[in-house]
């Protein structure tokens, strides 16, 4: 692929494939899940071949998502550990969101926002998997008492909405911070991007 000279590798091919598999699953789960959550979204079930197909396919996509996200956790968990710098960075969030990064602590490979997304998903996806298994009628419908299933479906909905909101933030951040999208599509960033957003990481390269 064409790379501008001096560009810096941000994500390896395996990482990018892993990310996009996760992303595709997440989008499909959001569409199918919302169609079963609120009547105003029921038409989305047509994308999956109707309500029966949506109901049947949603849990399987969920399994793939969790397996795929586990791959991202293996690759990223260490660089997402919280440090004092992250707290300091977060204190400057009011400056950061208006694109004024003067005096903001230098950031390693991931900033506090990215770490927040990472850990939020690392928490929400297993919760969605567990509660999802409980309400997977075809295979596990008879395994738990009905009151447990009621609680599970409520937690599943809450966790899903939380995850979708985290996802909206994640996608918007990728659009807002120009050059980030290419990091995940083509795998590389410009030195200026790295200098501006992840200076500590750039220094370590």
């Amino acid at each position, binding site marked *: 692929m064409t790379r501008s000279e001096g560009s810096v590798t941000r994500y390896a091919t395996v990482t990018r494939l892993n990310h996009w598999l996760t992303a595709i699953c997440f989008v499909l789960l959001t569409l199918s899940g919302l169609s079963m959550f609120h009547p105003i979204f029921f038409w989305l079930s047509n994308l999956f071949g109707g309500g*029966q197909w949506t109901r049947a396919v949603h849990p399987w996509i969920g399994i793939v998502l969790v397996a795929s996200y586990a791959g991202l956790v293996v690759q990223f968990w260490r660089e997402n550990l919280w440090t004092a710098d992250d707290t300091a960075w977060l204190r400057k969030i009011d400056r950061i969101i208006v694109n004024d990064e003067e005096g903001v602590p230098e950031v390693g490979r991931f900033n506090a926002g990215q770490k927040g997304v990472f850990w939020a998903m690392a928490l929400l996806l297993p919760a969605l998997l567990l509660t999802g298994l409980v309400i997977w009628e075809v295979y596990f419908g008879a395994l738990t008492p009905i009151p447990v299933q009621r609680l599970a479906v409520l937690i599943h909905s809450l966790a899903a909405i939380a995850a*979708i909101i985290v996802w909206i933030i994640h996608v918007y951040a990728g659009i807002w911070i120009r050059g980030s999208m290419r990091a995940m599509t083509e795998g590389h960033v410009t030195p200026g991007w790295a*200098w501006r957003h992840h200076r500590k990481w750039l220094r370590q390269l």
Partner: protein
Amino acid sequence: MPDLQSQDYIRRSASTLTPPRARRHEQEVAKLIDVSRCIGCKACQSACMEWNNLRGEVGHFEGSYDNPSDLDPNTWTLMRFTEYENDKGDLEWLIRKDGCMHCEDPGCLKACPAPGAIVQLANGIVDFDSEACIGCGYCIKGCPFDIPRVSKTDHKSYKCTLCSDRVGVGLEPACVKACPTGAIMFGSKTDMTAWAGERIEDLKSRGFEHAGLYDPQGVGGTHVMYVLHHADKPSLYAGLPDNPRISLMVELWKGALKPLAVAGLVFAALAGFAHSIVAGPNEPTPEDEARGRRLLGKDEPPGDDVSGGGAP
């Protein structure tokens, strides 16, 4: 046959619009099951199978008269037998015909995510439309009486229809027609309530001081009612809920959470859009690029780096 007369719908699952309301004069019906007159012959069960053309699989003896042992996609009504020893030490054989109660406030309908898969007719019948059913099993979670069953073969949910196809053409449900003792009666809810009153009076005069009508108000009343000799303890009758109501979990899930969640998603998306208009994109400046390149030791003038593109 729920779509026979769509004008008669008063509720439709997963619908944000008001169903047609042309026929508001429809009389509310009710089935009254007088437990004290039931002899446990299971004619109602047979009639249900025959009219609805249901053939369940032959099961196994589970040590009780309950046969089959539970409701299933092919068993929409079931006699449940309870051996109860009363205060005097006498055995009472309590027999209850279990099945859909046709709630005035149906939990199944509230929980159902498929538009029109569950409807409530103006006469009070709560009916499932198999064509629209997606097999998710949410109706099972919504129901306070543990009635609906999802088939493993066609992934559709089934339960008693109160013979909506018969009632729609002026006939009584099949179980009512078959009952040899008159323990199952059918008519307008008003008439059935009045008839139950007479029965209860009679039972009280015979020493069942707690005899009463089971028409639980927690679900807005039901269109299948019981006359119980122990109306103070409905759970004696094979676990009939003492005070059934739609679970708080279901109310939260299908009540507050739906609008809040949509508002949350819309707010998140709008906040992002507003931010992009107010603050705009965050782009590296030429200065950032120069500093970045310098840090990488690539601050030579362009053209020298002919190898191009290699990351360090």
